[in-house]
């Protein structure tokens, strides 16, 4: 009886320690750079990149299977941030990004069908059936998911207006 208890205890302890040591030395770590990239990305999981959400895109960019330019809502700012993080050189001028854009509803065209509101990943479109819809400027990430859904082409992407609160003094020309 005692011999059985002792042998099993010793066996358990030895195997447990072996497992603990193995966990410490043979650990497969998640790539920390992926987490950093996820933190940079818009995080609305809009799916325009073709990957399942922002984490999928981040993994693909780190693995090199997707270009750093694959995220439309992130725009130029995100591309340069990712390029800086991964040490890539990206030709930003080829991107044709003219600043962040947001969706706006052309009120004379909107028929109040609610299709756009259903696909918006951030619930930025306000509207009820047969009521003219409207976009919350602060909540829209410019992912363009709603654009294709509109049967009357009432949704248009427009550049975010520059206001006094957002204006930044341009950088002086280098000597």
């Amino acid at each position: 009886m005692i011999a059985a208890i002792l042998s099993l205890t010793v066996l358990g302890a030895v195997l447990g320690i072996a497992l603990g040591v193995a966990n410490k030395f043979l650990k497969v770590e998640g790539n920390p750079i992926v987490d950093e990239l996820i933190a940079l990305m818009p995080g609305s999981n809009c799916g325009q990149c073709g990957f399942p959400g922002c984490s999928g895109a981040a993994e693909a960019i780190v693995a090199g299977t997707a270009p750093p330019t694959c995220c439309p809502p992130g725009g130029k700012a995100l591309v340069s941030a990712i390029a800086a993080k991964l040490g890539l050189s990206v030709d930003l001028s080829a991107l044709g990004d003219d600043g962040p854009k947001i969706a706006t509803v052309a009120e004379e065209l909107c028929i109040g069908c609610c299709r756009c509101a259903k696909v918006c990943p951030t619930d930025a479109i306000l509207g009820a059936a047969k009521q003219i819809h409207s976009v919350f400027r602060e909540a829209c990430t410019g992912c363009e998911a709603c654009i294709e859904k509109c049967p009357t082409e009432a949704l248009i992407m427009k550049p975010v207006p520059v206001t006094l609160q957002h204006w930044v003094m341009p950088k002086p020309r280098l000597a």
Partner: protein
Amino acid sequence: MGFMNLFKHFLGDDWGVHPDDRKRPAADRPLRVMPVPEKLYLPLQQHLGGPARPVVLVGQQVKKGELIAEAQGMISAPIHAPTSGTIVAVTDITAPHPSGLTLPAIILAADGRDEWIDCQGCADPFALDPVDIGKRVAAAGVVGLGGAAFPSAVKLTGAARSKVKTLVINGGECEPYLSCDDRQMRDRAAEIVDGIRIMLHATGAAEALVGIEDNKPEAIAAMQAAAAAVPEVQIRPVPARYPMGSEKQLVQVLTGKEVAAESRTFDIGIVVHNVGTALAVRAAIRDGRPLISRVLTINGNCTNDPGNIEVLVGTLAEEVIAFAGGLKGDGIGLARRVMGGPMMGMQIPHWRVPVVKGTSGILAFDAQEVAAQEPDPCIRCGSCVKACPMGLLPLEMSARIGNAAYDEAVGIGLKDCIACGCCAYVCPSKIPLVQYFVHAKGELAAQDRNKLRNEATKKLAQQRQERLDREARERAEAAAKRKAEREAAAAAKAAAEAAARQAAETEGESA
């Protein structure tokens, strides 16, 4: 260089620059009061903080001093009608800002009667509760008139709450060309001292130190005469040196205390107000009059008749210039339009922008004064390091900002930069150093806004997911409930039928 100066030089205490002040002859001319213009353009944001919210309708008649836009949020200031008349529009106008962007404003057409509303003054301000003074100052829309336009009531009540010991009154006026504070100290010394006493009462501070640069001997004499009978108000001449009128520098020269990096004067028991603000506070408390006008300096080589003018807030710069005798040769030699001082003021795109509460000057420069020059490479002479009043390394910071390494620039003190422009002023290569820092600060603010926006987006996306999950769950539960009800109903029906059958059978048996 005298022995003392040499000593200071070795101690690193020779910050700042000594530009040619060019304050005279404008400062020596008597103050002129500009008549009411036909139309006034009143931006809803003339102060730091949240913009005011209009409380008038288009077409409404207002009297002079009537509230037309109320304060919104903790840090904000209301706006009052500078004259009696009709509200013509609430629309976007060009902002007095280098961007040339627009901002919403109320447009008021004067009726020429200039009729005041009933002003509730107070004969004995010292009987008032300090909190009450703060409320009255806030209601009068008083903001710091030195240039930054921070709501004064916030500073007064904040000072009372953090129990400051010393009130520093800023009569430094270190910016070249400007002399509006100088003129007011000469003309209205007694009123300023009265205003300072009211501020002392409101803040609970024991003493007031009035710092005046020694290039204004007339102002010092007038203020000393006015404060002779008031022991708690001390007039302290300070050496003329730019940026002496900067809060942190003035406090250090007057009290010997240094304000730590990224902290405020409150933290060392001091609050700073401008001399013009003391006048505005006095008018708000003694006469119950809101801040609707200010004194500003018109100056620069292109002006025909430089001097100090009292104008209503909302008057177009164009009309102020016309009143002050216009520009030489109708502005042919004009090279730059500036609102505020030449060092820290704003270059404006045209003259059709209104005077706001914080406008201390309107300057019209010719090419000789602007002295625009293409920048040359940095020769690492260190002039900017010696000039920087905050003890920073402008050449190192600008090199990092040039490479878009904003975080590194912050690491070597970008956030402590007060954007005084001493570095760019002394640079022998004419590198626009201070413009780099203003750009970088804007860029960092934009990055912070982006970060907040990203966080908000993530939260929104998460909330949407939760909502979709909840809806799916609720649908499933409702379906399950309906199914259960259906089954229960069917079972009940079956049971009833069975019971009926049984009853019929037993009936049949008994029969």
